């Protein structure tokens, strides 16, 4: 089945492009430490809000040169009453490939110093400019992406077993159990999900480590979505629970939990796969929305949502458009997931014609 799905994905032009884009994104996130010129926490306060570095390949005499860049100088412009950034042309900083830079631990274990691109120690290579703390936006995009692009998947891995089991039990047992369980699920669904999300996020105690916070946000995201999923699963269980194979299992004395888990729930596999791929984007969006409001991933950790927090100020979005790049990445990632999800649905659920 997986091979069939993959074949169809490669046949569809859009889905193929989406797969490639996501592949590139995830590869880049995997090698983030190496690809990023700086570490996540590297900051140079004198470089707050500097624009993207300009890279020159032709020097002042009009000759080709090794690529180099200039640092920015901050100056106060008395006419416009704002800080302007000028290139400090007194010193060239050559761009170096595979050179030693900030030390890091590759994959969290192997200590390394080499980066794909970097420049000398006094030079600053900010490919997408810097944020308010003088941190490299490009590097933080890569590290933030690690959080933004995995948190949705993790939430799904928490949510789906819960929803499957809940819906399975309610549907199989039926009667009072079903009524009570479904009333509870309906009640959870009756709270506008984003309201619930921000309330759950706001009661998280402060002073947690970033790993704890990350895990709790995963759980909160999972708490939002399980109910709707459980309800659909219940409906599917209701439609198969009286079929012969279930009765056969019953007659050989299988326990009820075994019947649910081993015989009934596997019937929902293709629905689960479709639902999962189609809901990844909504979790990416939820996390970024939450972090955008300052309730999700907290500084100094980066996520695409909390990087966009700075875009809430007019001055930032008008004078420092590079701060908006995380938004475009969210857009691209969500679009790619949607396109893939649509194609997978077409393959696994040929009756639906949403595309």
């Amino acid at each position, binding site marked *: 089945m997986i091979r069939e799905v993959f074949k169809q994905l490669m046949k569809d032009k*859009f889905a193929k492009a989406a797969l490639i884009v996501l592949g590139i994104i995830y590869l880049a996130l995997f090698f983030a430490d190496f690809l990023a010129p700086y570490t996540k926490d590297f900051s140079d306060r004198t470089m707050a809000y500097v624009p993207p570095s300009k890279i020159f390949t032709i020097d002042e005499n009009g000759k080709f040169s090794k690529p180099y860049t200039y640092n920015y100088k901050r100056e106060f412009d008395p006419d416009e009453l704002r800080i302007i950034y000028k290139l400090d042309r007194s010193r060239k900083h050559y761009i170096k490939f595979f050179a030693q830079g900030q030390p890091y631990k590759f994959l969290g274990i192997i200590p390394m110093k080499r980066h794909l691109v970097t420049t000398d120690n006094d030079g600053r290579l900010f490919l997408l400019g810097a944020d308010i703390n003088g941190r490299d936006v490009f590097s933080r995009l890569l590290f933030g992406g690690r959080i933004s692009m995995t948190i949705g998947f993790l939430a799904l891995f928490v949510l789906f077993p819960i929803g499957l089991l809940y819906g399975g039990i309610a549907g199989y047992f039926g009667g009072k159990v079903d009524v009570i369980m479904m009333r509870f699920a309906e009640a959870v669904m009756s709270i*506008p999900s984003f309201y619930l999300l921000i309330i759950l996020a*706001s009661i998280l105690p402060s002073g947690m480590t970033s790993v704890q916070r990350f895990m709790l946000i995963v759980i909160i995201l999972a708490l939002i979505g399980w109910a709707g999923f459980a309800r659909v699963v219940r409906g599917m269980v209701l439609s198969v629970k009286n079929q012969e194979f279930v009765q056969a299992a019953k007659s050989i004395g299988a326990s009820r939990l075994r019947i649910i888990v081993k015989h009934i729930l596997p019937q929902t596999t293709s629905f689960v796969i479709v639902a999962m791929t189609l809901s990844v984007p909504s979790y990416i969006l939820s996390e970024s929305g939450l972090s955008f409001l300052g309730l999700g991933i907290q500084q100094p950790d980066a996520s695409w949502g909390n990087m966009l927090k700075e875009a809430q100020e007019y001055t930032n*979005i008008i004078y420092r458009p590079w701060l908006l790049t995380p*938004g475009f990445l969210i857009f691209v990632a*969500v679009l790619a997931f949607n396109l893939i999800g649509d194609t997978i649905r077409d393959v696994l659920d040929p009756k639906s014609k949403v595309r």
Partner: protein
Amino acid sequence: MQILIYILKRILQTIPLLIIVSLISFFIIRLSPVDPLAELKLNPSVSKETLQRETERLGLDKPIIVQYGKWAKSFVKGDLGITSNGEQVSAKLKERIPNTLLLTVIVIFLTWIVGVPLGILAAVKWKTPFDRILTVLTSIGMAIPSFFFAVLLLIFAVKTGWFPVGGLTSSNFLEMSFSQKVMDITRHLILPVTVLFTISLAGLQRQMRANLLDVLDSDYVKFARAKGLSEFKVVFKHALRNAINPMITLLGFEFAGLLSGAALTEYVFQYPGLGRLILEAVLRSDINLVMASLMMGAIMLVAGNLIADILLIITDPRIREAGGRQA
């Protein structure tokens, strides 16, 4: 008559639902390690007596189940307590809920007017370039994060100066004549409506298209075609009526989605709605306000679903005859 009984039953069903909602919300909020009156205690303009009254009203010295009882009793009576600024919660809600309703109702209206015809067109022209282009466009619409789109529109508004930035009314609103007031509100609504419209249009258009495609595949439509009816008649007289019913169920979901989506949009545009209210309340840990707006959100959502269900009974004779079983 049967319809009326069903509707009544359906309305009564929402009561236990809302009770469970309130229990869930209450326990989530109360089990958090936040002192519900912390903000109130810090506010120097709130007197000791008010504090005392709030402690008693909430029963904070009693076990949590008693607290819930007290809260539920005063909620039913319409006493929602005071915010951390000492204002009445109910007054605050009365001011904000109509704004959110205005926003969502306009968006739903617009998405239906545009989305349903686009869905029909895409289904009729299935697999033509027109259909493909629409699919690409809706994919894009679905993928834009609402808050990011809102931020982009804000830049646009600031740069061009064509639209007012933030709020629902201008500062000189009270001095305007009636028609000026309408114009003013419209101008303020354009940007938030655009954001929510773009996001919810895609889902609606796709659903309509899928429904109609399903119906167009059915035997009775084939029969109608075989009979030699014009394609126009087949689509609009026979297929459409069946394809539109599931859309009404979707109306309830759409309302729910909009309430959630509106929160971020309201926040970015500084729009005085329920979503922004709850957000501000959450950030200030203003427990009374959070609890009350959470309940109001849930009530609006349940009411939206209820209206959709009732509409469905009216439009779909099959459900009417089954006594509403299918709904």
